[in-house]
């Protein structure tokens, strides 16, 4: 089977297993901008193996995956960990060659530049949101502007700028496999980030981000640690969910 002209949407374990609604939004947004894409019976990208120190095993998995994904023209993923696995671990550490890989926000930003995704296609989303830079997407992969440009396109959206953004942004605590090693501490870090580092205002409707690990950990942080901060109604949304709303749900 040849995929030479095709686009692969690599969904990633976290979206597939834990964030089905967010995944639906991702797929819907791609369809709405008329992108034909395939999906696979995916396994793990190997990033958790790499992060935990099992480099040999990560390499084995990478070699297996290459067979499956190597023939596509382009790989798009909404998971920064998978993105980094492909671009940094597969290519730089293991010397494997891959088709181009883009984060969903990079891909959609191109659609904006191509004139496919335009402001007049978007309905107002009347929310006050804050964009959280995932460490894996921002500091690690240098993707800061694309998510902001996409949010800037949505009519009605008001953006709250927190104290620390981009290179200086505060980690949510969900990285490095800390949620596996010490889940309560990881979620506590999320709460501290929102209340003490970002100082989110009470009228903020949603924290928007572009990483499934951040979504899970930030939600857990709000659920477990911020009863008294007046943030009971604060939502954590995937950027794709905002676009999905704007494109008509």
């Amino acid at each position, binding site marked *: 089977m040849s995929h030479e002209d095709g686009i692969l949407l690599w969904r990633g374990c976290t979206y597939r297993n834990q964030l089905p609604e967010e995944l639906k939004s991702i797929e819907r947004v791609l369809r709405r901008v008329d992108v034909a894409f395939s999906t696979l019976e995916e396994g793990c990208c190997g990033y958790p193996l790499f*992060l935990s*120190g099992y480099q040999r095993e990560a390499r084995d998995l990478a070699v297996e995956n290459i067979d499956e994904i190597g023939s596509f023209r382009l790989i798009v993923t909404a998971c920064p960990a998978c993105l980094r696995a492909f671009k940094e671990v597969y290519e730089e550490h293991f010397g494997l060659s891959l088709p181009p890989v883009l984060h969903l926000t990079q891909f959609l930003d191109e659609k904006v530049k191509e004139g496919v995704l335009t402001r007049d296609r978007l309905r107002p989303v009347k929310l006050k949101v804050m964009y959280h830079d995932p460490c894996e997407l921002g*500091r690690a992969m240098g993707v800061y502007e694309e998510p902001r440009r996409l949010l800037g396109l949505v009519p009605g959206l008001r953006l709250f700028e927190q104290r620390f953004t981009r290179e200086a942004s*505060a*980690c949510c*605590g969900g990285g490095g496999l*800390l949620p596996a090693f*010490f889940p309560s*501490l990881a979620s506590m870090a999320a709460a501290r980030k929102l209340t003490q580092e970002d100082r989110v205002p009470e009228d903020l409707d949603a924290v928007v981000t572009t990483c499934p690990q951040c979504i899970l950990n930030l939600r857990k942080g709000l659920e477990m640690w911020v009863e008294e901060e007046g943030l009971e109604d604060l939502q954590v949304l995937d950027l794709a969910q905002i676009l999905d709303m704007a494109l008509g749900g």
Partner: protein
Amino acid sequence: MGENFERLVGDYLQALWDAAMDDHIRLALSRAVESFRRNRAAAFKLYPWVEEKAERLREVKDYSLLHVDELAREVKDRVEDLHGNCIIAETVEEAMEYIGDQVKPGDVVVKAKSITSEELHLNPRLEELGCKVYETDLGEFIIQNLGSRPMHILSPAIHVSRERVAELFSKVMGREFPPDIPTLAGAAREFLREKFLEAKVGISGANAIAAETGTTFLIGNEGNTRLVTGLPEKHIVIAGLEKIVPTLQDGMLVVEVVSRYANYKAPAYVSLISGPSKTGDIEKQIVYGAHGPREYHVVLLDNHRREMIKDPVYRQALRCLRCGACLYECTIYPLVAGYYGYLYMGGIGAVFTKYLIGGMENAAPIAYTCTLCGRCKEYCPMKIDVPEMILKLRSELAERGLVPERVRGNVEEITGRKLE
């Protein structure tokens, strides 16, 4: 090994959890983080070229690490030429034996802050030799009396709120103190004044050592460093080999950069010490021990530092100036203070734990606590890439079967692979 290792990890996690649940720690840390940021911003505003200087210093430090053997010999030659003593101690034991020879039972020893001295377990060992040891840095004094361990490399008592300090001082000094910071600082001053005068030996660390003159640079704010290095008969400097830089100018560069990144516009004191006190005022005959120490000893500590230098990834950790900026911007440290560490803290602490004190088993839980977010690197004057080092360390831990069960199990579950 597996069971003991898991117990060690369990104890570490328990300590982390207790710290995370401690309201005093949270309060003290959140005050400290914000105050640090305000002060640092003010220092950077006044001296905007500090980042450029940090970049220059980075090159100096890298050069110095790669030439550490010849620079250490140069230090030794220069110090001895100026009637001081210098030893390049390969091991902790060697260093301790040398220091032990400089003290007598019954000696009062005053110390200025030195985290390197903790690698030697200096205080308990001096006490075994019959010495009475006093930490004179206010933070260290608090820690010593609490029977706790330093919780920040620069501000060791950072996790202790003023309320707890007042309680502690009331106990130690036998009278009541209000939780008022100036009053508490005054009480420590009064208590320690006589110890300085009684002391036979003063022990300090070093912020830098300039090879060309064998000069020790010591930065201080409280003034205790001047008394420790000036009043007793003997002054012993304990410094890791990575503190050596080639020239006096390089030493000043260290002073400038580390101070600003450590949130000071200018430290109150910078001491440059190149030998014992001396006078030639009578017939130009030089005699040693005028008003200051008669003896000056420099202990240059290797303790696996040369091994670290040989590794291009871990080498960068030895650029560390100990400004502590990384800890304030860390995701985890502000929640639990130095419990996220062994002696050295934070992600970089895992690397020091592997090499300098504690070993691989103690380094493991620290390495798996780091979220690999990389924010510390952004704020580090030496641009030390902590995530890069932690990933390398984790791969070595996996090789040795030192991945905590919780992590291994989770990765097995995600990937469907059985891991050893």
